């Protein structure tokens, strides 16, 4: 089956700046995919190439088999992209904007029921006749998301959709997006909120300096890179060499160890006991994507 998005050897050069250095990535139908990475990693450039806003220097991207450059009409028809910038058209109200947006994609009055569903799902129903200018920041963000969904695209790309958005909207938004994902829409999101990616996404790609440095299911990534973390308050001591490799972080007497599995707790504690180091406090944490993120991004910098 053709993948929802196939990215092959994408390079992008802006003068001397090599923003993307050969990105390969396959996103399957029905995936809920998170594209993560620090600022300047190239996530938005990659999404802009996918959207046709930026031309790649080399490589190709196809959406459900349609090349985004050569068959841009078919490719764009399948894509719904939420831009990162909070942009709006001050001349029109929310419903008008959604109708226009659907119209650009060839959808007519038969699409109105879907527009209503989007308005309802994003909590915009009572703002349908409000001019875009008069909406609050959070409401503008919802309208921006609604616009991307107006033509009911099978592949939905959300570039930082929850930046500066309150908790209520975030929950509402994710409920709606999860529902779309259950109905078969492929979802790709970039976000700075790693816990969002962790709870929502089945697969994660991590970008750094224009490359994908990790790509796996969320569960695998968590297991592979982070496992569990053990925080011990030990005071100003020198660690025995045997547990030194497990140390990830040390800050004013608090030592954080990365554990692959639970049996290592016993090992750490026994080594400390033999070295006569007293444990003042102990905390065991489940690893999260932030740990993965830090260990990967930190490791290679």
């Amino acid at each position, binding site marked *: 089956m053709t993948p929802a998005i196939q990215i092959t050897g994408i390079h992008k050069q802006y003068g001397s700046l090599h923003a993307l250095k050969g990105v390969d990535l396959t996103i399957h139908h029905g995936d809920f995919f998170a594209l993560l990475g620090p600022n300047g990693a190239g996530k938005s450039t990659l999404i802009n190439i996918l*959207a*046709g*806003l*930026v*031309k790649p220097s080399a490589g190709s991207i196809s959406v459900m088999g349609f090349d985004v450059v050569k068959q*841009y*009409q*078919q490719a*764009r*028809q399948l*894509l719904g*992209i939420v*831009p990162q*910038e909070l*942009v*709006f*058209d*001050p*001349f*029109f109200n929310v419903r008008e*904007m959604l109708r*226009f*947006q659907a*119209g*650009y*994609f*060839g*959808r*007519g009055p038969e699409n109105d029921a879907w527009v209503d569903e989007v308005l309802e799902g994003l909590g915009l129903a009572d703002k349908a006749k409000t001019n875009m200018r008069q909406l609050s920041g959070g409401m503008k963000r919802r309208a921006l998301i609604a*616009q*991307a969904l107006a033509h009911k695209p099978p592949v939905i790309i959300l570039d930082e959709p929850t930046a500066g958005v309150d908790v209520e909207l975030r929950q509402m938004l994710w409920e709606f997006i999860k529902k779309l994902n259950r109905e078969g829409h492929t979802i790709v999101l970039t976000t700075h909120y790693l816990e969002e990616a962790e709870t929502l996404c089945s697969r994660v790609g991590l970008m750094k300096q224009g490359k994908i440095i990790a790509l796996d299911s969320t569960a695998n990534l968590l297991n592979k890179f982070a496992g569990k973390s053990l925080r011990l308050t030990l005071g100003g001591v020198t660690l025995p060499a045997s547990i030194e490799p497990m140390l990830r972080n040390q800050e004013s007497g608090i030592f954080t160890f990365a554990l692959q599995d639970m049996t290592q707790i016993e090992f750490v504690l026994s080594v400390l006991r033999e070295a006569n180091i007293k444990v003042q406090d102990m905390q065991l944490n489940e690893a999260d994507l932030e740990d993965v993120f830090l260990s990967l991004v930190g490791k290679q910098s």
Partner: protein
Amino acid sequence: MITKLKHMVFLKMGQAMQAAGLRGFWTLLKKELLRFWRVVFQTVAAPVITALLYLLIFSHVLAGRVEVYDGIAYTAFLIPGLIMMSILQNAFANSSSSLIQSKVMGNIVFVLLTPLTHLQFFAAFLIASIIRGFVVGFGIYLVAMWFVDLSLANPWLIVAFAILGSALLGTFGIIAGIWADRFDQIAAFQNFIIMPLSFLSGVFYSIHSLPPFWQKVSHLNPFFYMIDGFRYGFFGKSDVSPVVSLSIVGLSFLVLVFITLKMLKSGYKLRS
């Protein structure tokens, strides 16, 4: 059999794409029309009033002092020029201001993300500009009818020059709107190109009244041919033959269309 089926599927898809494309184009045109209609006081009433002020002041000051065509009152002579000047300025303003606003606000992205082709994009902005020019021009004509009884020697030529003139300036507005990054650059276009060319095109005088050197210079001004040909449609008299004017205006339009389509196709300043 399978190739035939495949062929049919692609044909169906092609037809659907075409229908969708037509609706896409129509939607963009509708949006562009609504955009200026929502602020009709600014986009239509204001230029009509400006033209009316020119008419009142210039006809009062210059009637009897400026030599125009035999048997045609100065006020009557002035009106077609004012109508055409307003058509041209407003056609330019429509496409250029819409594009620069969308670019500065960032909402141009809503159109760039769609399957609309560069031809559809061009056609929607072009036709909206022509319609804006017509609405303003017709508004001035309606008001001017109160003052002067205008003859209509050749209505088809009037319409032809109005369409070609507004199309030319609408296209020029698209070029300016795509090229400019800021509002003041559009204002510079208006103040340093559109205004001088339209004021020096023979709106307020017949270029036959000018010294030979300035007559020659006027012949280099494309606006002159639009005004002169448009005026011929009303009086059946002009400084140069309307066929020459129509050809020059038509040719200039084609050159600008070529440049604009090149810009749009390459994604100049719109897609990086």
